[in-house]
């Protein structure tokens, strides 16, 4: 247990404040946008910048306490950077397929009109879309 120098505490404080602001900004964006595909973008701020700043603060602070390089908070960053794209992509596919099944107007058409995507019945395009 070493005494933590003041400049490290100041840097940790700046990182924590920045993380709180990033998370609030992403939450406001998540609630504010009107469409699901728009709404998927603001949480990326929290998933990248919010967690990177907190993990950086943890690395700085625990390294200063123990007097050696402590890198284990990065493990959470590594794990989130592996798992978050998977869930985001799955939810995007969910939104796309459910919209197509509900027949909403502004849904992107399938890439190939002849082969229906798995999990939905084939439905011909209505307004002459390719």
């Amino acid at each position, binding site marked *: 247990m070493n005494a*933590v120098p*003041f400049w490290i*505490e*100041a840097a*940790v*404080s*700046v990182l*924590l*404040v920045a*993380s*709180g*602001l990033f*998370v*609030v900004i*992403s*939450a*406001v964006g*998540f*609630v504010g946008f009107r469409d*699901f595909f728009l*709404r*998927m973008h603001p*949480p990326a701020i*929290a*998933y990248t910048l*919010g*967690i990177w700043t*907190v*993990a950086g*603060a*943890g690395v700085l*602070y*625990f390294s200063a*306490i123990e007097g050696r390089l402590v890198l*284990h*908070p990065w*493990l*959470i960053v590594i*794990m*989130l950077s592996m*798992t*978050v794209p*998977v*869930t985001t992509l*799955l*939810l995007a*596919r*969910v*939104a796309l*397929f*459910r919209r197509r099944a509900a027949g909403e107007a502004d849904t992107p058409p399938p890439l190939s009109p002849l082969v229906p995507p798995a*999990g939905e019945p084939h439905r011909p395009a209505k307004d002459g879309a390719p």
Partner: protein
Amino acid sequence: MTSLLAVAIGFALGCYAIASVIVLVRLIRGPRAQDRVFALDLLYLHALLVMLVLGIQHRSDVYFEAALLIALFSFVSSSAMAKFILRGEVIE
């Protein structure tokens, strides 16, 4: 711990609380199921951040392991719910 770090920790925790309340609006109001699943995933992230900041506050490593477990459960539960509302079953 100086008062500067204590104030910064309090500010960060307050920001996470406010952000969780804002996301809760989308969780309750969200028009479709995928909005609610995404909001739940964000709430998991906020809990993880709270755990990391508490670890800094109490100078303890135990919170880090809790945060790692929350990250794992967030991935498992979100992907399971996404598979469920996509296909109607989790494991085919």
